């Protein structure tokens, strides 16, 4: 897969005869990173699966206009983040209780998730992460799990590096406090 850099994938995609092939290669190249990014935000596998498919369908629709200014990976991550946050907002509206956060629902999903294979401390960490506000959770996941540089995160989230560092710092403090408490 490394033999196909983004530029080559995009060039192949723009030729009608290799369009499907290039798209398939792109999905195979990025599906895991996109999946885990979404999974950490929405927890449930079926929801994640739906969102990931939607992300790549949107990518298919937008690839013709994609100008590669930001890089394919950055662009896909941005779509993935937006789709995941949009899903969480819709989920919160479905709860019909404006004062109730979506966090208990996600925590319940985590407790019942058949695909969680971590130990107790890892589950505790995941529960701690779920207490964070959505955007702070995105920043923490990107830094802690995906190990993205602030510069990359800044391009994906279109936020200044300073704001992202502050956000990550607050997230770490809240998680640490949770771990101390529970």
């Amino acid at each position, binding site marked *: 897969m490394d033999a196909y850099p983004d530029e080559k994938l995009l060039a192949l995609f*723009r*030729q*009608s005869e290799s*369009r*499907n092939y290039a*798209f*398939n290669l792109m*999905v*195979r190249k990025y*599906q*895991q*990173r996109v*999946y*885990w990014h979404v*999974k950490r935000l929405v927890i449930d*596998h079926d929801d994640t*699966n739906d969102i*990931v*498919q939607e992300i*790549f*369908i949107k990518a*298919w*629709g937008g690839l*013709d206009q994609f100008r590669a200014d930001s890089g394919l990976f950055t662009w896909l991550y941005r779509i993935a983040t937006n789709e995941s946050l949009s899903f969480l907002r819709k989920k919160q509206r479905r709860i019909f209780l404006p004062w109730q956060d979506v966090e208990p629902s996600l925590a319940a999903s985590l407790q019942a*998730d058949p*695909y*969680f*294979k*971590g130990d107790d*401390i*890892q*589950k505790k*960490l*995941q529960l701690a992460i779920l207490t964070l506000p959505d955007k702070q959770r995105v920043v923490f996941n990107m*830094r*802690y*799990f*995906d*190990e993205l540089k602030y510069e990359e995160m800044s391009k994906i989230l279109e936020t200044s590096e300073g704001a992202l560092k502050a956000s990550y*710092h607050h997230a*770490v*403090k809240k*998680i*640490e406090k949770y*771990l*101390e408490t529970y």
Partner: protein
Amino acid sequence: MSETMQKPRDHIREELENDAPLLSAIERKPAFETPEDYFEYLPQQIQQRVLETNPQRLWGPLWVSRSFKLALGFSFALMFILSSLLWFTRTEVAPIWSLNEDELFDQFFALVSEYHTADFYDLVLDDEAYLQIDSDTELDDYLFEYADYYMIDPFETEDPIEHEL
């Protein structure tokens, strides 16, 4: 397949050691997994969904290209303008069965008048008479005078000029 996670790098742990010792003590390892062969089949599922959602996009770059859309739009605009011009400058020709007797005569006369007028001149006006006629009224009078000759079936009578002579 289990969650992929890159090999922990020192700077991530170093960042956490001072500010969050409990968090930094947690081993960073994959905590989730997927159904078996999930990533093997996901691309096919996505391709299928793309086909269902956007079948026309499989036509390729020609169909979706901006220049193609512009050309298509220009063609439609040109066709519209030409159609409008034809519509507003059209001449309505009534079907022959819908005309009354006067209209039928007018149309017939409009079509053949030039030919018949020439014939009239050739047949009726000799050079001397033509030179003496100064006005349309005089021409009408002259033609009426000889009208009898022309109302007679030309196949059954002799030439009117000769008859006069």
